[in-house]
Structure formats: structure tokens, C-alpha cells
């Protein structure tokens, strides 16, 4: 039973309906097989792109959907509830366009954004390196200015859509500090390693990208030299909300499967949902899922009003992904031995939930962000629409 939602207007409701149609008719039938065979569903992203779902949170004048984060995130959640890899992909794509949108010049935006948001292209972002994960400021990838271009050399680890994307938002160290570049996939010297062999999210390609003297025009620098880390971290505030939405989608799917199973399965002559010991587990799963959703929606509403939302985004990411881990694990418990097999999807949800606690800032890092913000003070403001 999918989540009950209250949406701000009729178009948003139609958008969610369209999303559900695409999910049940196009995504669901493929998801299990693609995950089992570790196949990246490039065509599925094109389908979502044609439906307009790859540019939702950007303004219409740049080719986006002009949709609020409150609505966009619920689309991501619905997608993730049938296929987490695709939900993550939609969020990562949005994040990859973020630097250009927020820090690009008007000329840069007009040149590249409509294409990036148009649905045919897929984006990726390269921040992490093998030795620089939680601490991206330790990155070593270099961008050396040479006339009117930069030459990028180094390796970026863990790139979601690595080798599949059409463009990469790349953070590299220039003379003026860490800087952000928009690099086309066909740039000479840019190659992808073989994808990582992961525990879950196996339909999503994750690969190290190698920059072997990749030359890009200086017009592909976003903002100024030295702005890169700030651009990356600002993007992550929004990206984390995407991951929170993915996590809630996973939790919702786990609740739905567990409840459906518990209403059918009989032991001791009764449906197992009629045993209090089990039904309270289900009640806790439902409560965790609902409160996680409310948490990311709260952060989204702040963001939509142009208010600071970084702390709330970190809280949402922390709460939602921890909830997803617990709820998916409990769903396996509800299904008993069957839950532990690949014949049911809940073990996959559990494997997929794990990574949401790790990427876009581990949950330890989220606590750090939240604590730092608390140390600074500032809360308790009342805002009117």
C-alpha cells in the first residue's frame, strides 16, 4: 500500500500519479532482474527523462520542471520504493546539475543546462577519492591552468554513473584551491575503471573515473578557482535530502511487503499479524517510516522558502537512513526464512538500505554537521509563508 500524501496542487498530484504509473508499469517489472544481473538501466533513465522526471527541481526557463523540493523528493521516494538504484540515480543527476545552476554564469547556464535537464543526458559528480572520503579536502586530483584551458589529472573514486554518464561535475585542486569543473564524458583522457562489486544497489554503476591529462576549456570552470569545495558541500545539502527520500522509499517498500506477508502467513492456526509480538514490530516499522518522511519534508519546506536547511537536511538524512536500515532488517524478520532468500525482495531492500547510511556523508559525518550547527546556536525562528 503506497504512502498517503498531501500535495500542494493538482499538477503535483498528477505528477505523482504519473510517477506511480511509470513505477508499476515500467520500473517494477525490471528491477529485481536488473539488480540480480548488475545491469545499469540506461534506457529507464531515458524514459524518465522523456517524462520530465530528470529535471524536476530546476526552473522551467532552464528546461526543468519548476517543481518544489517538497514535491520532487516525493517523486524520488516513490521511484526508490520500487527501485532504489533508479531513485539514487535521479537524485545524483539532480546533484550533478546543481553546481552549474547555482554557480554558473548566465552564459554557462544557457549553454549547457537545457541539455542537462532535457532528459536525454545523465550526470555524475566526482568528489571522493580513494583516500579522501569523509574528508574531501584531502583530495589530490589536480587541475593545472594551461592557456585558456585546464588539464585535470588524478582519479575520482566511487562515482555513481561512472562510465555511464554524459557529463561529470568534477572537484579538483587548482592553484587557487579546490575548484569545480563540468567535464563532458567524451573528453580525451577520461576513462572509467570496472564498476565496484557492491553488496547492494547493484543496478547502479559505481566506478573510479581516471583523469589522464583531461583538457577542458577554462569556460568549464564553475564559479571561481577555490569555490569547488563550497559548491560540492552546498550541493550535498540538497543531495542528502534526495538520499533521505530514497531511504524512506526503501522503508515504505519494506513495510508494504512485510504487512502484506503478515496478513497472509499463518502459524499456530492464525495470521501472524494477529500475534501482538509481531504486529508491534510492524507498528514500529510504520512509525519509523512515517516520521522519517515528515523529517525530510520539513527540511524540504525550509529549502523551498529559501531558509537555511543544512542542519535539517543532515537530520533528515540521518533519521531516514537509520530508519531504512532498521525497517528493512525487521522486514526480513517478519518474513522469517523466506525473507532471507532472494525469492522475496526484502533482503535486497536491506542490502540497499545499508549504503544510504554511508554515501553523501556517512551518518557519523551527519552528526558532526548537526552538532557543529548546534554549537553555533540559531534556532526557534517562526516563519510565515
Amino acid at each position, binding site marked *: 500500500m503506497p504512502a498517503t500524501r498531501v500535495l500542494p496542487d*493538482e499538477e503535483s498530484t498528477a505528477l505523482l500519479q504519473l510517477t506511480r504509473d*511509470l513505477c508499476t508499469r515500467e520500473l517494477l517489472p525490471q528491477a529485481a532482474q536488473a539488480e540480480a544481473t548488475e545491469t545499469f538501466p540506461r534506457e529507464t533513465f531515458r524514459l524518465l527523462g522523456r*517524462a520530465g522526471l530528470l529535471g524536476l527541481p530546476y526552473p522551467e526557463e532552464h528546461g526543468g520542471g519548476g517543481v518544489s523540493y517538497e514535491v520532487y523528493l516525493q517523486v524520488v521516494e516513490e521511484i526508490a520504493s520500487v527501485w532504489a538504484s533508479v531513485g539514487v540515480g535521479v537524485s545524483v543527476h539532480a546533484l550533478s546539475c546543481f553546481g552549474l545552476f547555482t554557480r554558473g554564469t548566465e552564459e554557462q547556464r544557457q549553454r549547457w543546462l537545457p541539455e542537462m535537464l532535457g532528459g536525454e543526458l545523465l550526470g555524475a559528480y566526482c568528489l571522493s577519492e580513494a583516500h579522501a572520503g569523509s574528508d574531501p579536502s584531502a583530495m589530490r586530483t589536480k587541475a593545472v591552468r594551461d592557456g585558456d584551458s585546464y588539464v585535470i589529472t588524478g582519479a575520482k573514486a566511487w562515482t555513481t554513473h561512472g562510465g555511464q554518464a554524459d557529463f561529470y561535475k568534477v572537484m579538483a585542486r587548482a592553484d587557487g584551491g579546490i575548484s569545480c569543473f563540468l567535464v563532458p564524458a567524451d573528453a580525451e583522457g577520461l576513462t572509467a575503471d570496472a564498476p565496484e562489486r557492491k553488496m547492494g544497489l547493484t543496478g547502479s554503476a559505481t566506478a573510479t573515473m581516471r583523469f589522464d591529462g583531461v583538457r577542458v576549456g577554462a569556460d568549464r570552470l564553475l564559479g571561481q578557482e577555490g569555490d569547488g569545495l563550497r559548491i560540492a558541500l552546498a550541493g550535498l545539502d540538497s543531495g542528502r535530502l534526495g538520499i533521505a527520500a530514497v531511504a524512506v522509499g526503501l522503508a515504505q517498500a519494506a513495510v508494504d511487503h512485510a504487512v502484506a506477508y503478515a496478513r497472509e502467513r499463518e502459524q499456530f492456526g492464525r495470521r501472524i499479524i494477529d500475534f501482538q509480538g509481531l504486529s508491534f514490530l510492524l507498528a514500529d516499522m510504520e512509525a519509523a517510516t512515517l516520521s522519517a518522511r515528515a523529517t525530510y519534508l520539513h527540511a524540504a519546506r525550509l529549502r523551498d522558502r529559501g531558509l537555511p536547511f543544512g542542519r535539517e537536511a543532515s537530520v533528515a538524512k540521518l533519521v531516514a537512513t537509520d530508519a531504512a536500515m532498521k525497517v528493512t532488517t525487521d522486514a526480513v524478520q517478519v518474513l522469517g526464512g523466506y525473507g532471507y532468500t532472494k525469492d522475496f525482495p526484502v533482503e535486497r531492500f536491506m542490502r540497499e538500505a545499508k549504503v544510504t547510511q554511508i554515501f553523501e556523508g556517512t551518518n557519523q559525518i551527519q552528526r558532526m554537521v548537526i552538532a557543529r550547527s548546534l554549537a553555533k546556536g540559531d534556532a526557534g525562528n517562526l516563519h510565515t509563508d
Partner: protein
Amino acid sequence: MKIVVLVKYVPDATADRQFESDHTVDRAGVPGLLSELDEYAVEQALQLKEKAEGEDVEVVALTVGPEAAAEAVKKALQMGADSGVHVTDEAIAGSDYLATSQVLAAAVRKVGESGAVDLVLCGMASTDASGSVVPAMLAERLDLPQVTLGSVIERQGDQVRIKRDGDTSTEVIGATLPIVLSVTDQSGEARYPSFKGIMAAKKKPVETWSLADLGVDAGEVGLDAAWSKVEAAEARPPRTQGEIVTDEDGSGATALVDFLASKKFI
């Protein structure tokens, strides 16, 4: 060029469907949608529009049905149709095929007042009544040639070539517009609306017409004027469990083959 696509609002086949006390289908109390078979007609209309380079093609989505039937028009507009017409009138409730085709014909004629209609596109059947006769009746009433059950449509000017796949042969039929044409579910998957299409649909014109607007006498349509009556309608009994073949002595495959052969599947 002007194309009218007929779009029917039907009860959702995946939900519980009900009958009213007069044995007509309950259309108000159950969730409904644009008949999936009509989505193929919308798709073909949109493809004809897209292929007509440089030529102005207007696609008008037409529905006859209760208030909620506006949803069928809306879906067609979201997919890409240019405008919509919703004929609604309490007197229409319970109409049989003859009366329905009469109302549709009057509506198509009225659409034609603002520019001749070159093509009336329909689905191969509705997913609720499954009569498949409306396109033929409509063609008769409009005095137009009809081609039914097309799977491929090619147009050059006012000439169309339509492929029809029968059980024993494939026909290619040539026709000169204007015609009434129905298309099958083999004509190509219908597109999803895009979010931009959903936003654009809000601004597209939809006209709502009553029987009086069409000059149709209310006494000629509706349940009382129907030429046939449904005397009883009962839900089918739930499906019983199928036959389970347990292979204990190696005869399982033979049993399966015999079963399939008895049902003429092989």
C-alpha cells in the same frame, strides 16, 4: 488537418467493477480512467501530427460520458492532444450503441463546423462493454468510409494506407480521407504524458456540450430509448483452483501437453 480521437472513460479494470440496479455499469461510484484501448488511438493521432512536417494538424479528443469522463479528455490532452470536447447530459445515461453513435456523430459534425474533420480515430473496442461496433455505426451516420482494426497507418496528403492483421491474412487498405478508422493494441505502445504535458494540458481548451447544444432529441437516447435491455447481470463466480499436475512417474510432461492441446493452445 483535423483529427478527432474518441476517448472513452471506463471503470478501472483492475478495480472492483459494479452494476447499478438497472444493470448498467456503475460509472460514478468506481475509479475510472481513459480506456487503455483508446490510448492507442490517441498515440496514432499524435504520431500523425508529429509526422506531418510543416502542416498544421489539430488533434481533438472527444468523449461522451458523465462528469467524471472529463478525466479521459484530460489524459488525452496531457499526452499531447490540442483540445477537448466533453459531451455530457443526464439524458445520455444508459444509452445503447445506436444512441451513443448518434451523439458522437452530432459532436463530430459540430467539431467540423470550425474546420472540416479529416479523420475520426477510435480504439478497437472499449475495455468495459467491448462492443467494437461504435466506429462502424459512426461511419454510417457520418456517411464516411470506415477502416477498422488498423495496426499501421501511413498518410500522404489525403491518401492513407492502413495495415490490418487478420487471423489468416494481412491486408493493406488504401483510403481517401475523410474516414473513420479504428486501431488495435498492436499499433504501437501509447506514450506516457510528460510532466510538461501535464502542465500544458491545464491551458488547453475543453468545450462541454449538452444534447441541446448538439441538437439531439433527449428522447432518442438514454436507457429508455435503448433497442436492447440487459435483463440480468451477475458477477462471475470467483475463479476456482486450476488443475495441479504432480509428476510422480514421468508422465507430467505428457499431462501438460495433453492439457494445452485440449485448450487448443498447441
